């Protein structure tokens, strides 16, 4: 009993982690499967076919590249716009500021289905051809909200005296921004960009409404699910997961190394 009581928290923690990571583990394991039928759902035999011929199924790689492209472009635009909006909202007092503050959060609160459908109606009414551009525009729209939330928090948390100190130390407005404000807000902006990219890459509902004939990676998987998802999808998903893992770990490692180096001095 005492043995259990001492370790209960640890046991529960392990169980929760298992619960979180089992789906990912299943995907990774099944990427080495050679499925018996057309559904890659149960283990049959080991095979590297999906990894050696990752673009072997038509549409997998092109949809993957499309999603990456959309993710990068919409993240860049949304991050720039969102950062500028955050500065305007935090630093300036203008008419309609609190209204803007409220409206910027609406896309986050709106159900994606509603947003996707209304965007579609808008594009159709404007006779705007559906495709990569419309999906990108839609993604920029909802990523902006997340960028504003993240960057605004960072800006508000910044001590205004730091900028005053910079002005006091002969920095003109441009230099204050370049050497003090921007470096201090940058971690917030980078965080917002990472979040924005993963939201865009992941998005299915809004993209589906506005894609026309375009096939993004999530749309491809959804379509493939009807007739059996190819093993290549598991391989690509594994790659995406590993890349994300590497980014997070290297961030951790960097700050750990820096701390160690400073302690050693």
């Amino acid at each position: 009993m005492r043995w259990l009581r001492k370790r209960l928290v640890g046991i529960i923690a392990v169980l929760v982690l298992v619960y979180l990571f089992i789906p990912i583990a299943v995907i990774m394991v099944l990427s080495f499967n050679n499925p018996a039928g057309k559904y890659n759902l149960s283990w049959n035999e080991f095979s590297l076919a999906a990894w050696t011929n990752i673009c072997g199924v038509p549409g997998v790689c092109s949809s993957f590249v499309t999603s990456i492209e959309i993710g990068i472009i919409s993240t860049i635009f949304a991050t720039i716009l969102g950062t500028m909006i955050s500065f305007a909202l935090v630093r300036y007092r203008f008419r309609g500021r609190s209204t803007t503050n409220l409206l910027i959060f609406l896309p986050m609160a709106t159900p994606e289905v509603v947003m996707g459908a209304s965007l579609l109606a808008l594009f159709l009414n404007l006779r705007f051809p559906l495709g990569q551009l419309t999906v990108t525009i839609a993604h920029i729209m909802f990523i902006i909200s997340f960028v504003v939330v993240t960057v605004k928090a960072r800006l508000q948390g910044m001590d205004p005296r730091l900028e005053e100190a910079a002005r006091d130390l002969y920095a003109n407005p441009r230099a204050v921004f370049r050497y003090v404000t921007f470096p201090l807000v940058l971690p917030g902006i980078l965080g917002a960009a990472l979040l924005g990219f993963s939201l865009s890459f992941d998005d299915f509902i809004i993209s589906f409404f506005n894609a026309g004939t375009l096939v993004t990676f999530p749309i491809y998987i959804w379509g493939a699910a009807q007739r059996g998802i190819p093993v290549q999808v598991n391989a690509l998903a594994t790659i995406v997961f590993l890349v994300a893992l590497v980014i997070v770990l290297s961030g951790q490692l960097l700050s750990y190394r820096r701390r160690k180096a400073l302690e050693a001095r």
Partner: protein
Amino acid sequence: MADQQGDRNVEDLHLQSLTKKFGDVAAVDDLTLTIPAGSFFALLGASGCGKTTTLRMVAGLEDPTAGTIRIGDKDITGLRAFERPVNTVFQSYALFPHLDIFENVAFGLRRRGIKDVTTQVEQILDLVELGPMARRKPTQLSGGQQQRVAVARALINKPDVLLLDEPLGALDLKLRRQMQIELKRIQVDVGTTFVHVTHDQEEAMTMADTVAVMNKGRIEQMGHPADIYELPRTVFVANFLGQSNLFDGRRSGMSGDDILVDSHGLTFAIPSDRFFAEGEDAIVGVRPEKIHIADGADVDTVPENHNRVPGRVTDVSYTGVSTQYLVEAAWGQELGVFEQNVVVGDRCDVGDRVVLHWSPSHTFGLDPSGGSTVGVDTEVLALGALNARLLGDSAGA
């Protein structure tokens, strides 16, 4: 470092009719002040008295509503913060968290386009004894070290005037004492004009050559710390700078050079050059440590010309160097008395009948406008009121 200012004339800082209004409220009200070159000048006042606003206007971080700021003959009122030959040590230091100590200190030089900063930075870091810390980040330094970085970061630019906004406020008492001495040493070394804003009267008196006591946007009194302490000219100064015993009275005549004031049936003599009341009403004041306490047979030895108040001891607290008494006068007011513990064992006890007496030359007469409690720490007042209520309750029960 002593020759740092040698190649340049340090000039006086002039504030002329300086006013700053926030809405209808004047934070600084028609302030005219000359701060002599090379002096350690303290602006002393309670929070909200306008001292920090004054400092920020000199720094260029706040625009004055009216008035001018000059350094020597040069009008800097219209210059922006980064164009002024003035640097600030901020209250919470405002060190750049993303830069190491070296880069923090080098910041001002780099912004002015100076390429080779290493020698100067190393020199100033040695002055504040932080050479080995150059590559650390600010968060890895202790409060006192951060404070010295802030001073170095400002001083390296050789400003005409160094502004210090409550620079020691965040430090604990012991460190604050240490830094007071340190700052004074640095100021003497570099010879720059230091303008130091503080609410701590002891800090102002320890460090500054000149203290200006500020209240409600105006200077109440200015001068050498000892002069202000010995001879406060307003009730605010008497209460804010140290403690004072003050009692209401009316002017009743002259005796030689002394003005006589009647108060609660007693008559006090005040030298006419220590008397500042405009009309007939006056407030009589004396510092607690100037009062002698006499009991029993000693009463007969009280000098004839001394001002005196008979009373009863209500509280005795022994603090080591001195004993602090509270003595209740006939009219109910409690007077504070500090007595040096020179003779061991010769202390009065609670309940003793005593005579308080002091020389007229230690007495001052003030104008009563505003009452006798302006400038008293409001917390002390609140504590006094609470105390009175508790005592009243227990007496009733």
